[in-house]
């Protein structure tokens, strides 16, 4: 058979994966059942990415895979071989915030903050997507990210501010 048994090499049931996470090339051995979300949080200690529903319904786990946003809870880590992953930790850093992070702060676009990293990862991806100009267009494109605190109005304002190029770079 010409399929490649990904766990065969060592016979320990773990799969060898090479991923680039936030610009760093990493070699990992993962259980095939492990989600990319759990791999990021538990193995790599990148806990900025959150687990909400764990079923692709809430968007808290949103990361960028090869430049496109995806729910990391519905992706097996073992099939990410060769992929580039960007998480909220790879977007900016204290003192050097991504304009979208700065805009979320400026617009008070969160309350408890649990959904925020997913919101920001989606919002950053949206900047490169064919999203229409109106607030309703933004609401539609952001609908995969649920905010239980209901910060939606301010989230839309933050996204629109960045799209209009009005956000200051770095710390607000």
């Amino acid at each position, binding site marked *: *058979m*010409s*399929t*490649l*048994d*990904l*766990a065969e090499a060592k016979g320990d*049931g773990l*799969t060898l994966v090479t991923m680039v996470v936030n610009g760093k090339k990493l070699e990992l051995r993962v259980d*095939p*059942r492990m*989600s990319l979300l759990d791999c990021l949080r538990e193995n790599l200690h990148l806990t900025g990415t959150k687990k909400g529903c*764990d*079923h*692709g319904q809430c*968007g808290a786990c*949103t990361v960028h*895979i090869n430049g*496109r*946003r*995806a*729910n990391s809870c*519905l*992706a*097996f880590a*073992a*099939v990410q071989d060769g992929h580039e992953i960007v998480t909220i930790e790879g977007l900016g850093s204290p003192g050097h915030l991504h304009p979208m992070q700065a805009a979320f702060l400026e617009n008070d676009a969160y309350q408890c903050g649990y959904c925020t990293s997913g919101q920001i990862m*989606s919002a950053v*991806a*949206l900047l490169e*997507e*064919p999203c229409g100009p109106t607030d309703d267009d933004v*609401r*539609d*494109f952001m*609908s*995969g*990210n649920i905010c239980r605190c209901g910060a939606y109005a301010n989230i839309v304002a933050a996204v629109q501010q960045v799209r209009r190029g009005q956000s200051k770079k770095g710390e607000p």
Partner: protein
Amino acid sequence: MKLFELERASDPAAAIAAAVASPTAQQGASIRFLAGGTTLVDLMKLGVEQPERLIDINRLGLDGIQEQTDGGVRIGALVRNSDLAHHPLVKKRYAALSEAILAGASTQLRNVATTAGNLLQRTRCVYFRDIATPCNKREPGSGCPAIKGANRMLAILGTSEACIATNPSDMAVAMMAYDASVHVQAVSTERSIALKDFYLLPGDRPDRENVLEPGDLVTHVTLPPPPVGEKSVYLKLRDRASYEFALVSAAAAVVVSNGNITSARFALGGVATRPWRVPEAERMLIGQVPTEPSFRRAADLALAEAKPRSQNAFKVELAKRCIVESFKRAGR
């Protein structure tokens, strides 16, 4: 989640050879192809699907969108839903398909979900997804709590006394209206199946949802060229404006010439056990003027066989209005 073996297929033949050993390609398959995973991984977490082996087919190619010499389009099985929805040819010639895809799920899911995976996505019936309850689709013969239970979202057409689960796809509804064909590669054969013959009615075996057999790999979908001058729309009615499954949806495509309808096609979503088409209702529209009474007569016929349950009688009238409104919008 139950442990499984993960393999990566190097080419379609290897994927097919690996999958043919599964006793079934339907509910409970022991070997599954893994593409985007947005349905399968979810169902594996719930314990609804418990495959022993997964064949990762993400590196097989099968991800092109090509215009055909006859003016139709060929869509690779692994084309991601976002790429299909935003493709210029699809937006121009098959507008209802683009609109249907964008009306479904979220950008995160559409970026990952594939053409074939969308065709094969599973019902959102809460009993199917909850392994603590009986479900004839998940465990044949165990019963259907939905028939007297939470059935507001469920089907009124194509149902049986064993199952009233709704097919949840938006994409497949538009493809049904566009007379799509599904192309399948098997161990030593290839075949093409009209989408209208691809899905099975639940009958007494709702665990069998389509005609796929073990080792069958969907390679691509084709759409024939639309009739000259056809205009189409997808109208989806739901509980919230975005990121919600349809209560009722319609893909409607119409050609009007000299004030009369010369071609009319439509399919319904959210109301049936598979994407639903009623050819007699379409034929009724030919030669008619494109006005509300004509569309209403076709809609009445389309829903004539509807069998609502305790919570979803509202869908009968809603579906009729959805048909009428979608044709009015298509004709504009």
